[in-house]
Structures are given as structure tokens and as C-alpha cells.
């Protein structure tokens, strides 16, 4: 039976109660306790820094050449916090409620409420670190709105919020490195966890420069290795983002929660050809001011600026008048797919919709002209001043769009299409962020916990930092307090030897196939299966086919793979081969999970389960639970259910109309 260890008491008192009653570790004992952190994105860097500050001996690992390059850096739009600086009715409860509702009632209430509570501390901490958030002329912080909410609670630093937050956490981490509290291992990849007497006690890592395998002991291990959207090959994730760390943990006993819950982000630059290696997101913040439309006429080939206003279908504003262009991501993505499937798509591929800034430029231009005292401004003056405002707010995003597409988005509307962006699923964790393996934790995108079946914009940064700065420093003490008598275990222990041997054998196996196909080509084929059959819309038949196809592809992989280079050298092809091998197992589990969940919720859209208007139809009577899968051997998983009890936010049919 899964024990989520949710503290007793009223929802808004649980975290306070927990903090007042959890076990503590005194400073002298902290110095004796070693903690391993895998990944240095927002969750990992903030956790490693905070635990180092507390006095634990921390080892942090990342596969990039510097911890500052983790993929959190690419987050654009912002970070939510219930500060209510705008006096527009925000509160901890509203942020909690929006997140639960946005997640389509598939997240755990207690975790989400805690997230909303600590959100305010995150902003304080980041500002103290020197994170240069956008400010108003009075010197105070600026906010903007994001999808799925009706308040302005998103803090931002132009379109580079993730970068600025990560640099803040990275600097805090480097400070601890300088102080000797954290030892940093860059260009290292975790390839297994080591379990001794039922507890996680360390990891096996590969030094990606030399190829050497290393054993590292820890009293506890934190996985903050991010999401697994790259199982789809094309996604907005970085090229190196992978599932390997959490997948190895899964195979060693950590249950995998809601693996099929994937976020398809509505505003990405469309695919341009077969050579495409990744997709680029255009921040959701663009939906604040941009209007999304397609022509009213099917297959209209006119240039966008030649299509008159009354022949444009602003379909989000039409279908969802209350939220308009700011509906949550899953809703916006499906609506775009619906229009394109029906034949209204634009661009050469017809798999795109317009995101138009013309109206916003005029609106801002008029305000600016008014401020400047220009009466009866010409259209040209309005445009000029409007473009200036848009440039200040979104300049870097517009520049990025132009670099990729060669089109000027100030002149012509951008073309966008949904793309895989984030995975709500991840390792199952309890309230303390511990997986089903004692001493093994999962933080940030690597866990399943806070976003249910759909994550709201600007909530990933919030969750990563909440877990790292404000949750794990408390909850890990509750575990380590009982470990103060555990002396460091020698890495000559048979469990370490055995784990290293298994890792080595697997690497040798990958190298020894000497077939004809590259890791990249297998990855592409897996991605296509996943996108076609386990993507924005899923059905039972397609998922069953996908499972068979993935099994076959995996077989082919292990008999016809070719890995260039050698083991004991810098070899990115070998790194990739190992990651693709894990994706080939994960993909199957995702399809199994999607098949078993015979309802639609959030980003998981089963075609069999929709309302008459084509909206996702939940089945609370049968599926109001977290699906936690236990690995039982190849193609074999056992389902465990954690029932979700909604005491405060009572589930209703989600409506943004």
C-alpha cells in the first residue's frame, strides 16, 4: 500500500504542522552526513546549495560541462507566486486552487497547497540573490498574467526568467563549492543507484570525459534530473535531457507516477523538415498580448496580412470567451490541433496557426502616443511606438523567431504549433518527496507530484525551486535524523561492486552489437511512434499498436545498433545510445499507462472520452487516483493506486468558457 505520508489536520495547517514536528539533525551531525544530488537545474542546484548551507556534505552531478547549463535555463516566461502585489485578489488559496483545477484534479491537494505557500518565499529568496526581475518605475516588482489564471501573479525577467533564476541558484551553489560544502562533478552521468539493506546508499556515475565509472556513497540520494519529454524525439527539451537517472531508479524499485501525463505546449515554432533536431518554444507570455487565429476559409492560401479581419477565426476567443487566448495549455493545444485537422491550418505544412501581434502593437502604440501627448497620431507613429513597447516586453522572443524562420514577426504574424514541452509524470514521491525506495528522493520535473494532468504556465520554475529551497531541507532531516549513526559505507561494499559491474556490462553490450543503425535513427523512430499514438490525442487501438511497435523497435535496437568510438574516451554517441535504450523502455510504460487510463484529463486526451463539445471528459468515479507503476521485469509492470481525496477543491468539470 502506498503511503503518501500526508500530515493530519486542515489543509492550510499541514505544512506548518509538519515543519513544527519533523525530526531535526543537529549541526555537528549534519557534518557527518553525505547527500548526493543528481542534476543541477532549478531543483538540483537549489537543493544542493541549501543543503550545503545547512552543513550537509553534498556531492552534485550534472552531465553538462557546467551546472549553469541545465535545461531550466531555457524557461522563458516566468514564475508564479501568490504575492498579490497587484491587489487583484490573489492569495495562497487561489494559487492552490488554480493549480489543482489547471491540473484537472489529478494532483495531491496537500503538496499543491504547500507549493502555493512557499511560492512567496521563493521570490524573496531570488531577489535577495540578485535575480534581476522586471520592475516598475517605482522600483517595485512587475507582474504579468499567464494561462489558466485571472490574476497577475507571474514574476519575470524579460523572456529569460529560467536563466536568471538558474543563475541565482547556480551562484548559490558555486558559493557552497567555494566553501567546500559541495563537491561538484560536471560532465558526469548517473547510470545506477546503489541499494543496501533496502535503502539508497549511493550511485554509479560515468565520467563523460574519460569514460571511467565511479562509485559514490551518500546517506541519501536526490534525483533532480528533469523530465523525459525527449522520448518524443522532437520536443522543446535540450538535446541532452533524458530519463536515464530516474529510469535506473525505477528499475531499482522506485515507482513511476502517471508516466503518460505529458504537456504539449501550444506555442512552438512549427517543424520545418526531416532534419529537425528539436523544437523551439515561444513563451506562453506571448498569449497575453498576441491573438491566435486561422482563416475562416478552409485551405486559404492568401498571405496572412491579406486576409481581412472578418475572414479570420479567433477560435480561442470564440470558444472560450472568459479566458480567451489565455486558456490552459492543454486546451489551447487541442484547439489548434482541431483547427488544423479540420483543414484550416496555415503555412506550407498546414500544421500551424497564427499568433498575431498587430492588434497589440496598435493598442500599445495608442497608449504611448497618448502618454507622449501626440494628438491624432498617424498610423505610422502608432506603429512605431507600439513596436517599441512590444520589443521591450518580448524582444528576445521575436528575435529568436526571426532567426529560426527568417520571417519578421513585427511585420507578419508568427506561425505556431503545439510541441512536447514538459512531463507532469515522474517518479512517485510521498509528501516528503521520497520515492518508494527509502533514502531516494525526486525533486522538480523528475517527480510526478504537483501538476496533476496538466501544468499551468510559470509553475515549473516555482515547483523546482520550492522543492529545492524550501521543502527538501526540512523533509530530508526527518529521514537523516535516524541515519546519524550510519558510518559512511565503503564503496568496496558488494552492492557497489555489483552495481558497477552491471553498468559496465550494459555499456559493453551496447558497444558490442556493431550493427548498422545509429542511436539517433532509433530515437527518431521511437519519437514518431510516441507522437503519432501517444501524443495530443490517444486511443486504445493506437496505443496497443504503439506498444507492439516499441517492443519490436527495442529488439531491433539491441541487435542492430552501431555506436561509434570507444568506451574509455569522450564519446557522446555512447551517452546517447544509453539514453535511447532507456527511452525505449519508458515509451512502452507511457503507452501502457495511457491505455489503462480510460478517461481524458488535462494533457491526456483519450478520444473515447470527450464531451459533445470535444473537451476532455474526466471519469472521477474510476480514475481519481495516481497510477504508480512498479517495475517487475521487461515489459512487466504492476499498477499501484494512490487514491486522490479532494477535501477542499471539489472536482468539477473544468470550464474556461
Amino acid at each position, binding site marked *: 500500500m502506498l503511503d503518501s505520508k500526508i500530515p493530519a489536520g486542515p489543509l492550510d495547517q499541514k505544512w506548518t504542522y509538519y515543519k513544527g514536528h519533523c525530526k531535526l539533525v543537529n549541526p555537528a551531525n549534519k557534518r557527518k552526513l553525505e547527500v548526493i544530488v543528481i542534476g543541477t537545474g532549478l531543483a538540483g542546484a*537549489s537543493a544542493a546549495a541549501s543543503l550545503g548551507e545547512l552543513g550537509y556534505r553534498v556531492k552534485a552531478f550534472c552531465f553538462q560541462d557546467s551546472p*549553469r547549463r541545465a535545461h531550466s535555463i531555457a524557461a522563458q516566461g516566468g514564475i508564479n507566486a501568490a504575492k498579490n502585489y497587484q491587489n487583484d485578489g490573489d492569495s495562497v488559496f487561489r494559487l492552490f486552487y488554480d493549480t489543482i483545477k489547471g491540473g484537472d484534479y489529478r494532483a495531491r491537494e496537500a503538496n499543491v497547497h504547500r507549493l502555493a505557500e512557499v511560492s512567496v518565499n521563493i521570490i524573496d529568496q531570488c531577489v*535577495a540573490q540578485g535575480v*534581476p526581475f522586471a*520592475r516598475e518605475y517605482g522600483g517595485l516588482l512587475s507582474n504579468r498574467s499567464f494561462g489558466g489564471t485571472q490574476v497577475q501573479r507571474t514574476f519575470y525577467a524579460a523572456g529569460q526568467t529560467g536563466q536568471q533564476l538558474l543563475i541565482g541558484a547556480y551562484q548559490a551553489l558555486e558559493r557552497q563549492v567555494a566553501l567546500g560544502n559541495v563537491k561538484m562533478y*560536471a560532465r558526469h552521468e548517473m547510470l545506477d543507484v546503489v541499494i543496501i539493506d533496502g535503502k539508497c546508499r549511493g550511485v554509479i556515475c560515468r565520467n563523460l570525459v574519460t569514460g571511467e565509472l565511479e562509485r559514490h556513497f551518500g546517506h541519501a540520494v536526490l534525483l533532480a534530473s528533469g523530465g523525459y519529454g525527449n522520448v518524443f524525439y522532437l520536443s522543446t527539451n535540450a538535446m541532452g535531457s533524458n530519463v536515464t537517472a530516474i529510469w535506473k531508479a525505477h528499475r531499482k524499485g522506485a515507482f513511476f507516477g502517471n508516466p503518460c501525463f505529458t504537456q504539449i505546449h501550444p506555442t512552438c515554432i512549427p517543424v520545418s523538415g526531416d*532534419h529537425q533536431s528539436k523544437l523551439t518554444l515561444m513563451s506562453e507570455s506571448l498569449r497575453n498580448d498576441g491573438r491566435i487565429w486561422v482563416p475562416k476559409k478552409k485551405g486559404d492560401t492568401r498571405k496572412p496580412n491579406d486576409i481581412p479581419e472578418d475572414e479570420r477565426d479567433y477560435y480561442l476567443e470564440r470558444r472560450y470567451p472568459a479566458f480567451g487566448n489565455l486558456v490552459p495549455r492543454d486546451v489551447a493545444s487541442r484547439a489548434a490541433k482541431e483547427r488544423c485537422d479540420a483543414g484550416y491550418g496555415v503555412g506550407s505544412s498546414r500544421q500551424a496557426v497564427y499568433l498575431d501581434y498587430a492588434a497589440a502593437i496598435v493598442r500599445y502604440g495608442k497608449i504611448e502616443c497618448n502618454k507622449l501627448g501626440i494628438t491624432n497620431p498617424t498610423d505610422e507613429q502608432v506603429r512605431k511606438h507600439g513596436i517599441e513597447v512590444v520589443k521591450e516586453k518580448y524582444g528576445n522572443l521575436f528575435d529568436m523567431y526571426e532567426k529560426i524562420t527568417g520571417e519578421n514577426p513585427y511585420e507578419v504574424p508568427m506561425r505556431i504549433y503545439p510541441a512536447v514541452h514538459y512531463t507532469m509524470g515522474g517518479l512517485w514521491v510521498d509528501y516528503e518527496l521520497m520515492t518508494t525506495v527509502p533514502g531516494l528522493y525526486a525533486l522538480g520535473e523528475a517527480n510526478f507530484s504537483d501538476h496533476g494532468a496538466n501544468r499551468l504556465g510559470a509553475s515549473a520554475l516555482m515547483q523546482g525551486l520550492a522543492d529545492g529551497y524550501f521543502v527538501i531541507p526540512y523533509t530530508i532531516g526527518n529521514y537523516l535524523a535516524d541515519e546519524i549513526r550510519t558510518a559512511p559505507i565503503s564503496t568496496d561494499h558488494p552492492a557497489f561492486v555489483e552495481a558497477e559491474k552491471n553498468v559496465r556490462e550494459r555499456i559493453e553490450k551496447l558497444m558490442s552489437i556493431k550493427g548498422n543503425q545509429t542511436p539517433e535513427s532509433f530515437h527518431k523512430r521511437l519519437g514518431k511512434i510516441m507522437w503519432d499514438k501517444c501524443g495530443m490525442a490517444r486511443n486504445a487501438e493506437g496505443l496497443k499498436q504503439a506498444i507492439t511497435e516499441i517492443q519490436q523497435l527495442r529488439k531491433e535496437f539491441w541487435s542492430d545498433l552501431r555506436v561509434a568510438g570507444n568506451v574509455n574516451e569522450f564519446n557522446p554517441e555512447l551517452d546517447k545510445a544509453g539514453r535511447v535504450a532507456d527511452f525505449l523502455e519508458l515509451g512502452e510504460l507511457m503507452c501502457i499507462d495511457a491505455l489503462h487510463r480510460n478517461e481524458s484529463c488535462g494533457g491526456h486526451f483519450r478520444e473515447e472520452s470527450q464531451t459533445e463539445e470535444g473537451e476532455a471528459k474526466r471519469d472521477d468515479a474510476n480514475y481519481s487516483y495516481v497510477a504508480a507503476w512498479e517495475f517487475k521485469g521487461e515489459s512487466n509492470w504492476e499498477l499501484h493506486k494512490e487514491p486522490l481525496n479532494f477535501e477542499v477543491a471539489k472536482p468539477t468539470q473544468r470550464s474556461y468558457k
Partner: protein
Amino acid sequence: MEHYTMNLTLKVWRQKNAADKGHFETYEMKDISSEMSFLEMFDVLNERLIREGKDPVAFDHDCREGICGSCSMYVNGRPHGPWKANTVCQLHMRAFKDGDTIVVEPWRANAFPVIKDLVVDRSAFDRIIQAGGYISVNTGNAVDANAIPVEKEKADAAFAAAACIGCGACVAACKNSSAMLFLAAKVSHLALLPQGEPERKTRVLNMVAQMDKEGFGSCTFTEQCEAVCPKQISVSNISRLNKEYLMAGLTAEKK
């Protein structure tokens, strides 16, 4: 944009490891799409090399959207290639035309030793940050975020400096392999904010000392760094760094 394909000649620096002397190798590339990114062209090349049983070209890359700072190719004598304010991952092949020859090298600087082919070791940058590129505030110490207003102009200037992605193009472009723009960006970011005030003097002194220790060259203000910086970090930050360093040197109390 009009789409076209092209044939190209690539001259790529190949170096097995740090000890190897290294050399250029020439590859003929056929039917490259103008819509491809520069790194996608390298993907095509590598897939071909693997099929031919040869060693693919190693290069650093990750986000491929110009923000992580991993990618680091010296293209036709310029870090990140011909486009202004750009990283090589965002460079697209429409920058080139049929028949072009493209020369690709790693960052070259003593402080950035080559690991393999186009991959270099930039950990010196991390050590410069360790020397003081932070504000010493433990988690939980912070006051309310709006308790200290920051002049918008200064906040914007701090943000502009903080936009540095730590790619090292500034070092690669500099004839002296100076890291002054990188350092100046961090010193400026933190010196412009009230939160950075308490450590203002020690920070700049310690970071400059670490930069010298890492073997970066001196700044002779040729402004090449700004010209190639993907984030257009201004050399005015170097002026600020010099001012900060001078003031700190004159007024800091010796420890």
C-alpha cells in the same frame, strides 16, 4: 523565406584529445537545406561518418535555442559564425550559399584546453564565479521582495549584464584571450543592485585575482568581445569593472 539547397565544403578541426596535436579534415556536404540549423548540418555529417565507420565530430551543444551557452564553434574566423547577436546553434544555413567553404574550429585559449575536436574545457569560468560571483545569502534569510525598491534603470542595466550565457565567445574572439567581458558582466550585474552592495569590494578583487590565476590574458579594449557576444553584453561593463576594481583596490581594508 525561400528555401534552397546547397553543396558545401567543410573544414573541421579534429583533435582526438588534449594531448593530440590536431589537424583539419575536409568534408564535402551535399544537398544541405537552407532551413537547417548549423548544428543540424553537423548532425547530418555525424550520421554519415558513423555509417562510414568513422569517428563523428564531437561538439558541445544542448538547448539549441541560444540560452544554455554550451555550443562553441569558431566559424570562418568568428565565434558562433557570421550572424550578429547569435549563438552557433541558432545560426541557420541560409547564412551560406552554394559552393561555400566553411572552416570550423574550437575556442582557442590557454584557459580553455581542448577535450576533443570542437569541445573545450570552460571550467575556469565556474572557478571565477566561485571566487565571488554571488551574493552571500543563505536560503531563508531573505526579506520581502518588495522591501528594497530598485531603480528601474539600474535593474534593467543589471539584467542586461546578467544576460551573459557564459559561452566564452568573448575569450575566443579576443587576441589576448581575455575574460574581461565575462567577468565584467557578473561584477556589473551584482554591483548595480543594492543586494550586491555588502560584498562589492571583495567580490571584484577576488574575481579578478582568480581570472589572472586561470591564465586569461589582459584586456586591451579592442571590443572584439562585444562584437561577437551572442547576448550583446556591452563593453561599458568593462569600464564599470575597471572603476569597481580601482575603487576597491584603493579603499578596501586589507584582511
